[in-house]
């Protein structure tokens, strides 16, 4: 029973972590509040769905297409919507609010364009849904695959930000934007890379979500909200924090519901969310950020 719940919590948590990771990366480097993040997840999910139903290509392979596609969308948005705007000091003064509005528009456009293109029908496919027994719990294989991939990407992300030059450069940008520019870190390139990376991770998350859930053009918004909760829990701009925040939310949701009742799910999540905002606004892992 409890292994069953633990696995459910880990699967949910690792997917939340993955989605929040991309969101946090974009916020951290550019201060953009991407409320269209869930729609990027949705696009990844559609890539997996169509790849399987039209081309008989499994989600593990189509993920390799979904990620660059999502990254390309990120690049289009960067060059089309933000590059010029970010040179205006007026836009930059209120970048969080402004980007939220822009991305809100992007989110509505993506939802409705997908709906017009593919119909608003809910869709789903069955993939690796045979059951295996894991220490007393019954789990479909697809959930184990989701868990394995999401965990691997999260760990890879942590290592990337610790060890690679690019990762360190991104981290430097997150921590001290002006100082990073002074020591010769190319801001534009790093910003673009982070945005594309964040989008690519969201695209991958979409492929994973589609393996275990049904999809629709409107699936993104609840995921965006969840990702924001995770980011606030872990700390805005703190990459490791969003991983821990994701897992925490998965555990809170699954065990909380088991101990109380499903109707308390939202109450529990948002109580913790508000408590963190009040008591530790920098997030559970976030250090007080020096505003520059």
């Amino acid at each position, binding site marked *: 029973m409890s292994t069953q719940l633990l696995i459910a919590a880990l699967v949910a948590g690792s997917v939340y972590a993955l989605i929040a990771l991309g969101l946090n990366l974009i916020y951290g480097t550019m201060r953009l509040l991407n409320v269209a993040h869930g729609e990027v997840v949705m696009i990844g999910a559609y890539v997996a769905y169509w790849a399987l139903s039209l081309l008989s290509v499994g989600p593990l392979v189509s993920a390799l297409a979904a990620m660059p596609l999502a990254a390309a969308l990120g690049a289009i948005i960067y060059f089309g919507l933000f590059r010029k705007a970010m040179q205006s000091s007026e836009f930059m003064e209120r970048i969080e609010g402004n980007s939220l509005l822009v991305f809100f528009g992007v989110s509505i456009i993506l939802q409705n364009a997908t709906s017009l293109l593919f119909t608003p029908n*809910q869709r789903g496919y069955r993939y690796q*849904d045979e059951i295996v027994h894991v220490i007393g719990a019954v789990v479909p294989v697809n959930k184990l695959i989701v868990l394995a991939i999401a965990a691997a990407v999260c760990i890879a992300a942590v290592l990337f930000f610790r060890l690679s030059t690019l990762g360190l450069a991104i981290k430097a940008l997150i921590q001290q934007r002006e100082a990073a520019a002074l020591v010769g870190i190319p801001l534009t390139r790093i910003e673009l890379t982070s945005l594309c990376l964040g989008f690519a991770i969201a695209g991958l998350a979409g492929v994973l979500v589609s393996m275990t859930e049904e999809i629709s053009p*409107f699936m993104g918004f609840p995921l965006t909200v969840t990702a924001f909760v995770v980011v606030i829990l872990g700390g805005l701009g703190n990459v490791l924090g969003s991983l821990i925040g994701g897992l925490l939310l998965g555990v809170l949701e699954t065990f909380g519901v088991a101990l109380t009742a*499903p109707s308390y799910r939202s109450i529990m999540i948002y109580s913790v969310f508000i408590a963190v905002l009040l008591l530790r606004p920098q997030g559970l892992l976030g250090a007080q950020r020096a505003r520059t």
Partner: protein
Amino acid sequence: MTKQLTTIAMALGLAAIGFGGAQAADPVRIGFSLPITGIFAPAAPSQQKAYELWRDQVNAKGGLDVAGTKRPVEFVSYDDQSDPGQAAKIYEKLIAQDKVDLLLGPWGTPHHFAVAGVLERFKFPMVGDTAASVQLRDLKPGYIWFPTSALPDEQGKQLPLLLKSLNVKTVAITTAQHPFALENKKFIVEGLKANGIDIVSNADYPLDIRDMTALISSMKQANPDAELSLSMTGDSVLYTRQSMELGFKPRVQFVLVGPAATFFTGIFGDKANGLLTMGHWSPSQKKWPKAKAFFDAYVAKYKEPPDYLDSALSFEACEITEQAVAKAGLDHEKLRQVISTDTFDTIDGPVKFNGVVNATTPTMFLQYQNGVFEIVWPKSEATASVITK
């Protein structure tokens, strides 16, 4: 002079022919709104496809018979963005500005309620379709009618009888926090108690639930004879998927809303065999010759089966409107009279209204059996007998 007169006469004659011709070809404009965008958008296609199938069939026959004259059908439709308030405004615009000849229903109970007031104000009759709530009975009779027979109070009486006939002694209930599901729960719980069936587990969950492991695990431990999942569309898939994964297999499984939708059986295929659900239409019903013809035409046009609730009800509303217009023409008062009093021959059998609700079609239940939903309850209407695990 004679020549001039002839010319004038010919010109007048031509004009008369021309005018007459234009009048005969004048389309009948039918208005409606559907949620093309917004949260209910996934529900719209099954209704829209039924409307369009009907329109194409009528136009292929030479047009809509308006008290003896055939006129082509043209749709005037808008996106209500899933907002009932928007739907009310659109229907007002359809009547007052677009001056449509007829109306068809929007999607869902709240939208029908929103539109009912507009119809009343403009004294414009409309046969509704995709709405079901006991509150429909409280609507002032007059300009709106509902062909559904899946009303929660009747389902609350019939479902326990079906369970009793299957020798069910204990049930577990899970209910989505949605007005329709909760309304059903209220009446079903009353019915279960009246029939001496024990409720061993009873839990509500929010519509945005993403994981039911805890809920299903605890039901599995209670080991009921039957599980009643009073779900809406999205969560019905989650429930069905996770109860399969967790090996929760009660002898009888009822899922309220969801299974009748096209995508549901598309996802589960034969694994959905044996699932019971609400609904009162099936192509297998030999008593209604139009049922199978509708199913076949829908599959031929769209390469997928219709939604057993929404598509069937929407097509039925079109049929009732069509038959009423053939008799009464487009005069609203005459139409209202005919719709209120006549019996109509539809894909769902004969339909006659009493006030706003369908007085002839009994409340039924469907079961998925090898690719088709069969009517399994009541026995007088059954197209197949119930299978249990």
